[in-house]
């Protein structure tokens, strides 16, 4: 029986006014991670990266990652069109299938450039299939937000929760970060997909993160991966119950079973949950078993277990890479908590139709 270790971690964001390419940003994160692991490029045997072609504005958008992560003339080609946490699940299996190998897991997103603002609507629209969904979204200024708006409405109506909770949660989460905004500012911001307002949505940013996974970590490890889970539902959002995050619940069920977690509220020291639209964080808390259905907002506002540093509402949202950045930063911050369990979650797909969860145990 083998376990997968996180031998090294790294993350990077461009400095103020710094002009970096995707390749340079991922290179920085990977160099950090290799240095952290005490490994050199030669040790790398495989890689799993994640990227979305349309968001990147190029097809086969992972190709340059090979050079950035030191993967030339190695088996470093695997690329998922999913969230970064999915790559932890795939990377773990890659490591377990070839014990002794060193697997680079990474993602980078340049989502904060001025070009993205101009094209963002089109990119969001093509997230939906053209025959049934796209015509419905054709008039929407924020097509993706529209689905999360529907989800928020369904959730609030089903559980009788006031929409002010959304603003309260975002205000609390963003308070410590560069994107701080008050509940009043959020409620005064324009509606993008009722009840969601511009202020509810995380601000886009650029970031990269890398984890070095291996079954053998002679130089010590940051953490041990205790379990991973991932699941998807139909991308046709009309076929799903939008008032809950079933893919996250299914992913958590797998990950917690593998990790031996039976009481997530008591056993998880920290949870990093995707919170790009606020409603997703409340639903995730419930899907992870941290709150009863309809009690997600109260549990989140009254506790410090989930997103203690604010998640993407505080740090900015680098789609696809953000969940890896959150995981890496949490592992970094939990260095003095050996034995503590961290769960990281991320979603992909239209209206979070796909989700992944990883459970880490911090090494001493």
């Amino acid at each position, binding site marked *: 029986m083998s376990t997968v270790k996180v031998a090294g971690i790294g993350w990077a964001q461009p400095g103020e006014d710094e002009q970096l390419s995707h390749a340079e940003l991922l290179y920085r994160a990977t160099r950090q991670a290799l240095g952290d692991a005490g490994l050199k490029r030669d040790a790398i045997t495989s890689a799993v990266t994640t990227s979305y072609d349309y968001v990147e*504005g190029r097809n086969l958008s992972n190709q340059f990652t090979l050079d950035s992560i030191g993967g030339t003339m190695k088996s470093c080609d695997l690329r998922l069109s999913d969230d970064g946490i999915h790559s932890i699940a795939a990377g773990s299996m890659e490591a377990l299938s070839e014990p002794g190998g060193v697997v680079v897991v990474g993602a980078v997103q340049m989502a904060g450039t001025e070009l993205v603002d101009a094209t963002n609507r089109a990119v969001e629209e093509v997230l939906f299939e053209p025959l049934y969904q796209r015509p419905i979204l054709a008039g929407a200024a924020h097509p993706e937000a529209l689905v999360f708006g529907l989800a928020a409405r369904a959730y609030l109506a089903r559980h009788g929760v006031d929409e002010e909770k959304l603003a309260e949660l975002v205000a609390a989460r963003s308070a410590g970060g560069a994107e701080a905004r008050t509940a009043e500012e959020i409620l005064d911001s324009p509606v993008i997909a009722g009840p969601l307002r511009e202020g509810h949505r995380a601000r886009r940013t650029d970031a990269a993160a890398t984890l070095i996974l291996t079954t053998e970590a002679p130089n010590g490890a940051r953490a041990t991966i205790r379990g991973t889970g991932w699941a998807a539902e139909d991308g046709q959002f009309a076929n799903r119950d939008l008032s809950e995050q079933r893919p996250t619940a299914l992913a958590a069920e797998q990950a917690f079973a593998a990790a031996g977690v039976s009481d997530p509220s008591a056993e998880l020291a920290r949870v990093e949950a995707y919170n790009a639209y606020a409603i997703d964080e409340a639903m995730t808390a419930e899907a992870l078993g941290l709150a009863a259905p309809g009690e997600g907002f109260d549990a989140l506002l009254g506790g410090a277990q989930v997103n203690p540093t604010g998640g993407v509402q505080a740090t900015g949202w680098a789609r696809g890479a953000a969940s890896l950045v959150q995981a890496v930063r949490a592992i970094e911050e939990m260095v003095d908590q050996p034995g503590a369990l961290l769960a990281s979650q991320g979603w992909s797909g239209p209206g979070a139709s796909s989700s992944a969860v990883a459970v880490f145990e911090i090494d001493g």
Partner: protein
Amino acid sequence: MSKKQRVGVASVGMMPFNRVLEDTAEEMAYKVAKDALDKAGLRRDDIDAWVVGSAVDAFSGVNESDKFLVAGSGGNGKPWFRNATSGSTAVSTPDLAYSMVASGQVDVVMCICYEKMSDNENSQKVFNYVYDPAWVRPVGLNVPLQCGIEARAYLHRYGIEEEEMAMLSVQSLGNALDNPYAQRGKEITVEDVLESPYISWPVKVLDTSPVSDGARAAIFISEDKLKEIDDDPVYVKGIGRGADSYWFMGRRNNDLGRLDYAYLGADQAYEMAGIKNPSTEVHVAEVYDPFTYKAMQHMEAAGLCPEGGAGKHIREGHGARDGKLPITPSGGLLGEGNPIGAGMSRMTWTWLQVKGQAGDCQVERDVDTAISTGWGGMYQYNATMVIGRD
């Protein structure tokens, strides 16, 4: 957490390829998944996880296009990944399915590779967006143009004539006549190929695989589970993946004529399979052949013939169905059609050959060991999979 376990292939799912299919991508996925399940005697509930592969989202015009295949593939509410490495999706996706089972995390994986290229009017425009936006894209490079550059380097390096490329096309299109899933089975002559128009010298129309729609499925399964349903089990014996720099003008060997990364992938696969001499130990090969010269490069990288000797292998009849080492007896991408992400068809045909279920495409010799290859990325990825019985 998990254990490493041996991996086999329970069945494959097939459907005809064609230039324009009425089926949606979801319907294609349903067809091949159902075919694979039926052949294996398995049900949807027996599958632990799904991994799907397609080359690029822009063919369908849908970002994260795989998310709309979830229900049709039977994967609703189940673990689901999508791998996308362009043409090498053909083997890198089955490789991922292999890793999922080998890791011990799951026992049965449905692997589906698909592409619906007819949704897009201009596949070469799509391919132009593969290139770096600052330096290469503005030049207007596309796949045929780059293949011309690469083919010239290959022919020059080994002193190969265009006629040898043509012979491979004649063999493959002829083989496809017996393939019930092929879109371009055709009896042609070397002269036909040589007289077909150049798309990018020295590559001609009949050196090139046709644009296509289609899908393939394969069920990867743990040894214990496989033995429960199959008394003639076929196992994954070896896998290997090589990758070189994104910058094709800066490859390690500074020579586009020799694919060092393909040699690397094949070497890994053979080492894992314990194969010392592939030209005698491999009994049939389905090599990735979007262009005739690519098939030749891949034959050589996989050690099926000496370096620079692919043309001779075909010329002397060794690659025919009754030859000593048959090459793409199904007709390959050249004859069957090339829905890019569904290049896994090469791997599915090796399974059919080992099982003796290849119908009129079955080779004469006994087959215990077969290989398939894939190629993709920015002409930078290559993968090899060895399957066979003990």
